[in-house]
């Protein structure tokens, strides 16, 4: 019991530490890559290659004056950033990033909510995917309340746009995952990854990206919209709305929104990897120690690919117009997602 508790606490601390470090260096990577795309240098002054820039940013955020507007709704104004960040951090609890790991005779699953014993199979939470969807949908309140409670026109417009956009794209997002659920027959993320081991015809990995590539592109576009990233960043369109829903926020409260956005991006990357790219599956080789760490490496590499894609698209595409955004979500993504479910269901039923 105590060993179990210690293992759980160690896992939680380690995962949250790695996640927040990842978020910090994601901002560095974004500034660097976007700078290179625009033929600039990006941060270079703090540390080698500007590597200590996230630390400097963090110190700056903490030391800035924390202002609350006079006419703001105080309670909700403070609650909103906390809600946004908490809800984005909770999702990481159900994400599996590998099989077992054994340290000093203690075997533990590489997942905060995964339970295992010596030699026994890992028991995973069996509605993992639904928990992520639920927690993400509660996170909308953070954005919506931020704009409303700061009692400013720009912030209100930003949060109205965010609310409408997130509700619209949540549908396409949820429906795009149904195809994978039909093929795997489970909500458990670990089970979904397990069904993707092995290969077709001896060389093509059994990842769901191949049978479900339409679903994958729907998921990717809907997820970009859910995280309010370019080309769907209308809620914080700086040319129209100053900064959108977090216009009135300063200091660490602003940083919390920023962190929530980046944590959400990482969650999206994790989900895409788990559902469509076979999770931690990849070629294994070398001595036992390397073999036990390689799955985590493959998993991180795939997530890194998605993070890079986010930045790449940010550096490439312009912003949608609002009516284009709505038409794209409702008239293109949603029918396509439904058609994908029907075709997938039909094929699975015919082959059964």
């Amino acid at each position, binding site marked *: 019991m105590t060993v179990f508790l210690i293992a759980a606490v160690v896992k939680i601390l380690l995962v949250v530490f790695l996640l927040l470090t990842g978020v910090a260096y994601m901002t560095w990577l974004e500034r660097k890559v976007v700078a290179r795309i625009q033929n600039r240098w990006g941060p270079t002054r703090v540390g080698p290659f500007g590597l200590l820039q996230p630390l400097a940013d963090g110190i700056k955020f903490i030391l800035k004056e924390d202002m609350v507007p006079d006419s703001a709704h105080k309670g909700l104004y403070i609650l909103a950033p906390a809600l946004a960040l908490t809800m984005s951090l909770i999702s990481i609890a159900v994400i599996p990033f590998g099989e077992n790991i054994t340290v000093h005779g203690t075997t533990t699953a590489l997942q905060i909510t995964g339970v295992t014993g010596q030699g026994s199979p890992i028991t995973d939470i069996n*509605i993992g995917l639904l928990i992520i969807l*639920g927690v993400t949908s509660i996170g909308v309140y953070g954005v*919506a*309340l931020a704009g409303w409670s700061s009692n400013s026109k720009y912030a209100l417009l930003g949060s*109205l746009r965010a*609310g409408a956009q997130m509700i619209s794209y*949540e549908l396409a997002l949820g429906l795009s995952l149904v195809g994978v659920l039909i093929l795997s027959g489970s909500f458990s993320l670990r089970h979904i990854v397990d069904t993707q081991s092995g290969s077709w015809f001896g060389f093509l990995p059994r990842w769901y990206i191949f049978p479900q590539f339409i679903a994958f592109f729907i998921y990717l576009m809907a997820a970009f919209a859910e995280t309010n990233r370019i080309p769907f960043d209308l809620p914080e369109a700086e040319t129209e709305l100053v900064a959108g829903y977090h216009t009135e926020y300063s200091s660490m409260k602003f940083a919390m929104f920023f962190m929530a956005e980046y944590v959400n991006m990482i969650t999206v990357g994790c989900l895409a990897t788990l559902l469509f790219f076979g999770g931690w599956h990849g070629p294994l080789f070398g001595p036992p120690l390397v073999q036990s760490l390689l799955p985590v490496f493959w998993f991180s590499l795939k997530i890194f690919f998605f993070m890079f894609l986010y930045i790449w698209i940010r550096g490439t595409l312009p912003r949608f117009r609002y009516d284009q955004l709505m038409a794209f979500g409702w008239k293109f993504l949603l029918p396509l997602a439904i058609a994908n479910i029907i075709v997938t269901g039909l094929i699975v039923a015919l082959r059964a």
Partner: protein
Amino acid sequence: MVHEALFIFFALICVGGAINLLVQRHPINSALSLVVVMGALSLIYLLLGAEFVAAVQVIVYAGAVMVLFVFVIMLLNAGAEERSQGSHVALWVGGPGVLVLAGMIVYLMFRYDRHFTPVSIGSFPAQPDNTHGLARLLFQKFLLPFEITSVLILIAIMGAVVLARRES
């Protein structure tokens, strides 16, 4: 023991949220209290061992329906409500009405006490899990009522669209 303690804890949150919903004067505070009620309800479902229903409760009610409520309140920019004196009918009929209703529920619960059995997480080892069990019930045994309900909802949506688009 832990189970009872958790149930009482979430039930208290649920009832507290519901009372707060009525007492608050600002619509947005009321809407957020309702979100708390939905969340507490979903945790009670989880205690009953219905993890799928619990997750759907959060996604559909707390995550979609209530977001729309909050959205509409924000869009209308509704301010704090004035407290009216209320009608005498509501006071004289509503008060005893609540008492009668509560009394009836308590009476029925005590009367059929022996039919109730305690449940907890994992007490339905149905099929692989209760998501499959629920799907079988919905799409095999009760397929017709389920489809009729969805047609009904479709009619309601179309009615709303017709009403909203009518030229005045």
